[in-house]
């Protein structure tokens, strides 16, 4: 079936909604997302499918297998409607009990309820869970109402109505004006005003009038996966945004450039595009408006720099993905020298919201210069790992402690890293910082695509800086000298420090190279590459000094700068570490304290991982006889 007009879309929406039998209850299982699947969600879904029919509950019970619901820590999660009961870490074995007790008898299964990591209190209602309470889930919200491979679900949820509104009642200029007025800025990290970019692309000279629209789904920042979650759970929101964008810009061909590491997202998008084209929501003569727009998926090939717009376009053209200098913006001359508008997945997913609810509504959320919400992937040393969508201007403390539930195992918070390899580390003293584009930049970090990695006292900040530089050294395309050589030299210095050969002048040298790098590199990768180093020096200088002067890594990460020691008081002689030690460096008899022979110990840390009694500690090299 092909929808010929906006009215036909409305008719279809009404019929989809009407066809849904009024259900007594509904079960939502977060199934179809890479991490849910890893945690065994498919088994849970299957158990529900068979369980519901066996229990004779097919009438009146709906089962919805959705994409990512954000709370990755407790997946696979199950929500029972209308009571909104949240069950965490459900296994196929639990399903029978849920069906029997909750669905049939209306009793809550206490042991599967979510328990607050701070207070230990069990919470039944999903909306009362602190993780969800402070969030504002505009983009992620629909995920729980949609089965990702069903376009009907999206349409029933009001999907494609923004497109209908734009095509039937707005001019392209009007759409751009609305987007400009909303104040939305690029969600990929740099924060360029989206409306302005569209305007430039629309008005730029193109010899044959061809313009392109690209969705950047090359989510390369390690520790960031919100684009994957959006694509996997709600691909149509991105497509709708792109079609609206193409109409505003006057483009008839678009691309989605997806990381090759995300096979499920590629699969989802392929299906979604086919569905949208079948219904006439993409392709030729969209909704009978005369506007044509086709979308193609292109897979990346594992190069971080291809997230940069000019490198991405080079890669699209089938070339090696190296950036070029941007004297001329891609919105004037991009893919094949034509005006090209490139936006991030999250930006596109926000567009239907803006068109539907209006620029004023959107501009009412957030801070003065950063509007709307932002999705962060809250990961690392945090209790509630997951995807959180918060209004701009929320404090870091709220994200880490209220939504994130604090640090596991009662450890101390040390820093939060934002902005991926181009970002920086923000210390405890700045936890009340309001999260928006400008505040983060002021603190020496950046918004980036939205990775938020929490670090505790066991994280070594010198090692973190070294880690990011090692990453960037591999990913630097090598075209410009400051990036290629600067990163290499800084990395050499950091490695020296981590190996216990740091020199007094090293910190100054790092700062100097870093400042040159900012001024002279060709693209954003090089310009921001020094951020991890400069921000850790700025906030954790003493840690660098301890590494250099005392030859000690307080966090116990840099191998050369600490040793393992067994505390004879705590060790109960269980022999577990003796068996596991790969270098046979631990000597001991049953029920007698063991000792580590420092001369054969390779500091691999297996004993530390194995010991269940916390008897193996990390100490300064001088404290043990080697």
């Amino acid at each position, binding site marked *: 079936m092909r929808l010929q007009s906006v009215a036909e879309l409305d008719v279809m929406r009404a019929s989809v909604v009407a066809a849904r039998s009024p259900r007594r209850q509904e079960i939502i299982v977060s199934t179809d997302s890479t991490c849910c699947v890893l945690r065994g969600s498919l088994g849970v879904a299957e158990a529900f499918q068979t369980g519901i029919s066996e229990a004779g509950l097919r009438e009146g019970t709906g089962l919805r297998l959705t994409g990512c619901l954000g709370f990755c820590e407790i997946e696979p999660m199950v929500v029972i409607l209308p009571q909104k009961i949240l069950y965490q870490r459900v296994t196929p074995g639990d399903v029978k009990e849920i069906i029997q007790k909750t669905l049939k008898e209306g009793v809550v299964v206490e042991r599967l309820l979510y328990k607050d990591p701070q207070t230990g209190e069990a919470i039944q209602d999903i909306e009362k869970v602190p993780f969800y309470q402070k969030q504002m889930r505009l983009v992620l919200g629909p995920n729980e109402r949609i089965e990702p491979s069903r376009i009907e679900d999206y349409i029933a949820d009001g999907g494609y109505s923004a497109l209908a509104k734009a095509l039937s009642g707005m001019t392209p200029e009007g759409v751009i004006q609305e987007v400009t007025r909303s104040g939305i800025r690029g969600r990929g990290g740099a924060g360029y005003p989206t409306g302005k970019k569209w305007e430039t692309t629309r008005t730029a000279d193109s010899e044959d009038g061809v313009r392109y629209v690209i969705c950047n789904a090359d989510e390369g920042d390690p520790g960031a996966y919100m684009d994957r979650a959006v694509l996997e759970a709600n691909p149509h929101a991105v497509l709708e945004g792109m079609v609206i964008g193409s109409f505003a810009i006057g483009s008839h061909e678009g691309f989605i450039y997806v990381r090759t590491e995300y096979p499920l997202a590629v699969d989802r998008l392929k299906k979604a595009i086919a569905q949208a084209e079948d219904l006439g929501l993409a392709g030729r003569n969209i909704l009978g408006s005369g506007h044509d727009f086709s979308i193609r998926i292109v897979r990346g*090939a*594992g190069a971080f720099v291809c997230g940069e717009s000019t490198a991405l376009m080079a890669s699209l053209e089938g070339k090696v993905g190296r950036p070029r200098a941007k004297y001329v913006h891609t919105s004037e001359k991009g893919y094949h020298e034509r005006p090209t508008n490139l936006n991030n997945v999250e930006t596109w997913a926000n567009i239907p919201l803006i068109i539907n609810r209006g620029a004023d509504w959107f501009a009412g959320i957030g801070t003065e210069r950063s509007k709307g919400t932002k999705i962060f992937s809250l990961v690392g040393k945090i209790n509630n790992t997951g995807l959180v969508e918060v209004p701009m201007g929320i404090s870091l403390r709220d994200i880490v402690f209220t939504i994130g539930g604090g640090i596991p195992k009662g450890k101390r918070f040390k820093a939060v890293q934002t902005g*991926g390899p181009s970002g920086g580390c923000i210390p405890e003293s700045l936890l009340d910082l309001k999260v928006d584009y400008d505040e983060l930049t002021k603190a020496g970090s950046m918004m980036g695509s939205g990775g938020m990695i929490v670090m505790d006292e066991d994280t070594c900040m010198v090692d973190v800086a070294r880690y990011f530089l090692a990453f960037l050294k591999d990913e630097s395309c090598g075209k410009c000298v400051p990036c290629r050589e600067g990163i290499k030299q800084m990395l050499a210095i950091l490695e020296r420090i981590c190996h216990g050969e740091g020199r007094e002048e090293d910190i100054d040298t790092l700062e100097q190279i870093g400042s040159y790098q900012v001024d002279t590199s060709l693209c954003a990768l090089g310009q921001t590459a020094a951020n991890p180093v400069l921000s850790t020096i700025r906030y954790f200088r003493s840690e660098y000094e301890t590494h250099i002067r005392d030859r000690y890594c307080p966090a116990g990460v840099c191998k050369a700068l600490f040793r393992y020691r067994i505390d004879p008081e705590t060790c109960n002689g269980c022999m577990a570490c003796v068996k596991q030690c790969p270098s046979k460096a631990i000597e001991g008899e049953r029920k007698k304290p063991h000792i580590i022979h420092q001369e054969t110990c390779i500091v691999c840390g297996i004993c530390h991982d194995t010991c269940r009694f916390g008897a193996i500690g990390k100490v300064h090299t001088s404290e043990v006889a080697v």
Partner: protein
Amino acid sequence: MSDAASTKTGAVLIVGAGIAGIQASLDLANSGFKVYLVEQSPTIGGTMAQLDKTFPTNDCSMCIVSPKLVECARHPNIELLTFAEVEKVEGDAGHFTVSVRKKARSVDGSKCTGCGVCQAACPVRATVRVPEPLEDGEGERTRAVDAIIDSHGGSREAMIMVLQDSNKAFNYLPEEVLHRISTRLGIPYAEVYGAASFYKAFSLEPRGTHIIQTCMGTACHVRGAQRILEEMERRLDIPAGETTKDRLFTLETVNCLGACALGPIVAIDGEFHGSMTTAKVPALLDSYAEGKNDSERRAAS
């Protein structure tokens, strides 16, 4: 000035006629020194003459270097010694004696106009050498690559997708496959190879039966991914990026698998193993190694 200084020869020998050597020669020659410019290759200009653009202004490289080449060649104070190597340096400051071996080029450089007639007549190397296009159209691999290329419509833009599919089909990118892609898509081999070596997703070497990807994302890193990798390297006795001798395992690192809640994470043959610890590594590896033995046993029986 001492006597020794005043009796200095006043000639300079410069080794290497790249852009630096040329500029130094011109500066010295213009200051009145006699310059001997020694160059190993038959021509001067070095690397810069082979470049297209220069960083950071993207200026044309030849436009900068070629006036200097000409000036260098016709400067009365500069003596070019190309296709020559320094053999011996004796003496001390102001009084060096240098032996230079000038290789035979069988052409009188002072008379040659570079007309190219001799090259055309030469029976040994009459043409500029280009790599022979591979004899293809025969092998199984060629047919497989052809099918992949056809499925992408054979356009130049499809190169990366063709490489991706080929990498998947053969588990790596054999040289002959790269040549075939070059021939079929009409892209110089250097460019195909350049792309194949640039992107991380491609391997230019054969890989093992099981491919281990250790996630090195930030979330995994702060949860101890480095130690997991080290344990893998130790157990398999190979550094990351290599394949075990028995071709059973290839150990790779990956920047982020995007499943950070489960970190540290290891993917083997695309199956994810979350919340890894060093203590779990041996059993995990064994399960894959034994899995293979099982299938072998089944195949034998």
